[in-house]
């Protein structure tokens, strides 16, 4: 980075000595709006950081030649290696050294909580496009944090609404043993019990479990008709494969809080029929989305997963807000322009609530199905719920 900055300065100074007035225009145009991406680019969670990066790369390409307030958009990437302390350090570097006013693309909720807590001090905007922990817009809310994505409790809500109408009565809940897994299982249990269904067992395997045999045996003994899964990406893939091996998925349907393309690719046909919520199902049949999926596939050679789609939408929205505010430097004005504003995304209409900065947006229940058009299983939308039904009450993780 340093070398490039140095070269850049050298080129600009050289240009300045050759052509005076041209230099002024140049310097103005070369003052980009920088967006910092402190994301996970190495280690086990890199698949998610790479989704954020892919979305940014496509967005940068789409914005080529289209300046925002006369300035180009520039992304600065940093690797947080899944560690909250490193994430804060990298975010601080982006803010202090690179002068970014906007951060996004953070992968883990633990990292997001750590960075969000620093934003009032740094006076910069942090837009979540991935982070699920309900607390971010509830207990840990601050006005510099905006969540445009569907949160964990919102995903659990969409699944619960779908299950309320299904004939399944007995359900088992399996969640990764940390905040997200435990919160979601609790939220799911209370919602599902309200509609007179029974949670017949709850287990919390540690993150990184490679052998789920013991849990699978328990699920079988419980004679549940469905198992609600809140497992981090890799653990979900492993569980689904092993459950299929044991033949459990024949009697007990997997129901996932987030049904990711990544899982469908890694698990393959063993996952066919699994249902769950999706924050962004790329198969959504709207003209805008069809066109986006085509552009994405042409550029990256793969279909967009949930965080690809939501990160791209977030960036579009952010640029729209900057334009509306008429500034990319006065953070307070950008915040004011964003609050209570709406945006036409790929999935439908988004509305940024002023009270807790959680975007109200449609929720989806989807199923993993085979489709001859695609080389792997894809999410098929079973039901779409309007934003007001899937968004929790202000600054809470609860629903009416």
């Amino acid at each position, binding site marked *: 980075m340093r070398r490039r900055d140095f070269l850049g300065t050298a080129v600009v100074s050289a240009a300045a000595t050759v052509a005076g007035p041209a230099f002024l225009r140049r310097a103005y145009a070369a003052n980009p709006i920088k967006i910092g991406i402190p994301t996970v680019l190495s280690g*086990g969670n890199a698949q998610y950081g790479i989704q954020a990066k892919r979305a940014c790369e496509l967005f940068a390409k789409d914005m080529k030649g289209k300046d925002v307030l006369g300035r180009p958009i520039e992304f600065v990437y940093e690797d947080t290696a899944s560690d909250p302390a490193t994430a804060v350090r990298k975010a601080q570097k982006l803010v202090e050294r690179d002068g970014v006013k906007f951060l996004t693309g953070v992968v883990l909720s633990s990292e997001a909580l750590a960075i969000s807590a620093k934003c009032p001090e740094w006076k910069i905007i942090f837009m979540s496009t991935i982070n699920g922990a309900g607390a971010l817009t509830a207990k840990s809310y601050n006005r510099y944090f905006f969540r445009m994505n569907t949160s964990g409790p919102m995903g659990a809500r969409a699944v619960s609404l779908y299950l309320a109408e299904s004939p399944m009565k007995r359900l088992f809940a399996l969640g990764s043993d940390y905040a997200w897994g435990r919160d979601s299982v609790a939220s799911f249990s209370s919602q599902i019990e309200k509609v007179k269904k029974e949670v017949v067992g709850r287990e*919390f395997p540690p993150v990184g479990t490679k*052998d789920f045999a013991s849990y699978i*045996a328990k699920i079988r003994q419980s004679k549940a008709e469905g198992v609600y899964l809140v497992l981090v990406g890799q653990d979900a893939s492993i569980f689904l494969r092993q459950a299929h091996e*044991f033949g459990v998925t024949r009697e007990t349907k997997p129901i996932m809080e987030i049904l990711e393309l990544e899982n469908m690719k890694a698990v393959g046909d063993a996952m066919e029929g699994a249902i769950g919520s999706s924050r962004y199902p790329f198969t959504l049949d709207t003209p805008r989305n069809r066109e986006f999926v085509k552009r994405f596939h042409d550029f990256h050679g793969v279909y967009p997963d949930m965080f690809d789609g939501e990160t791209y939408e977030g960036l579009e929205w952010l640029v729209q807000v900057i334009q509306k505010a008429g500034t990319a430097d006065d953070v307070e004005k950008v915040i004011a322009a964003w609050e209570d504003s709406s945006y036409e995304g790929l999935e439908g209409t988004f509305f940024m609530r002023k009270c807790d900065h959680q975007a109200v947006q449609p929720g989806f229940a989807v199923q993993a199905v085979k489709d001859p058009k695609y080389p792997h299983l894809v999410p098929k939308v079973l039901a779409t719920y309007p934003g007001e039904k899937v968004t929790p009450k202000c600054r809470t993780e609860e629903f009416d």
Partner: protein
Amino acid sequence: MANLVEQGLNALALAGLLFLISAGLSLVFGILRVVNFAHGVFYMLGAYLGFTVVAVTGWFWPALVVVPPLVALVGGLLEASTLRFIYRRPPIYQLLLTFGLALILEESIRVVWGATAKGVDPPLLLQGSLQLGDLIYPRYRLFLVVLGLAVGAGVWLCLQKTRVGLVIRAVAQNSEMADCLGADVARVRTLVFAAACGLAGLGGVAAAPMTTAYLGMGIGVIVDAFVVVVIGGLGSIPGSMAGSLIVGAAQTWGAFYIPETAMVIIYAVMGAILIFRPWGLFGEEE
């Protein structure tokens, strides 16, 4: 009853897998006196190479044969080009080096195969499950039990009954003396390191159908392998076997009967061993 048998088989299958990984770790420590942090990454490399071989040939069995020698080759080359030069330095150098190698290898794997997890299907013969009375059990897991036992017996026989094994044991006991008696210690070290990596690679291939090949699988498994080796005794093959059984049983039974404390159990066992028998169940007091 069926439940008890099932839990027993689960413990054995996990133990089989753990043994494939920890045997190499234990050997490397016994002979090279190096705690190899990169060992888990060789396991991961095995899984990814296994994925590629299965994808190219469409068969699982060739992967089981081809991949371990490939991983062994990578391991041997790395030992000969890096570790060899720092055996005489304090152990911290070797720790740092193997840790660095682990990071480099892991990121290289990401660059080559991408960040998405890779699913590997078991061979047709081992797909689905077997009905044994009341018990339904996946065939592939039974295969893991057999594989773990076979490899354990093979390694033990090789160490106890062959000339190569004799030299290896001699180097393990006193490398300077073995050197004086004409054993090519440098070569023995390279070979042992390569063989240990090959075993880890075999473990990776065998694990892939059960766990998929994914980034970070090496880091996750190395912790378990260390626990196995500490319990069983550093440098002892029967110790690795016993340790694998104990850890496999503690993890599967713990998760089944007392899930809230499952994580703690194996560390409690390890702690107890460290207090009462610090050299491990089968290790030798130094």
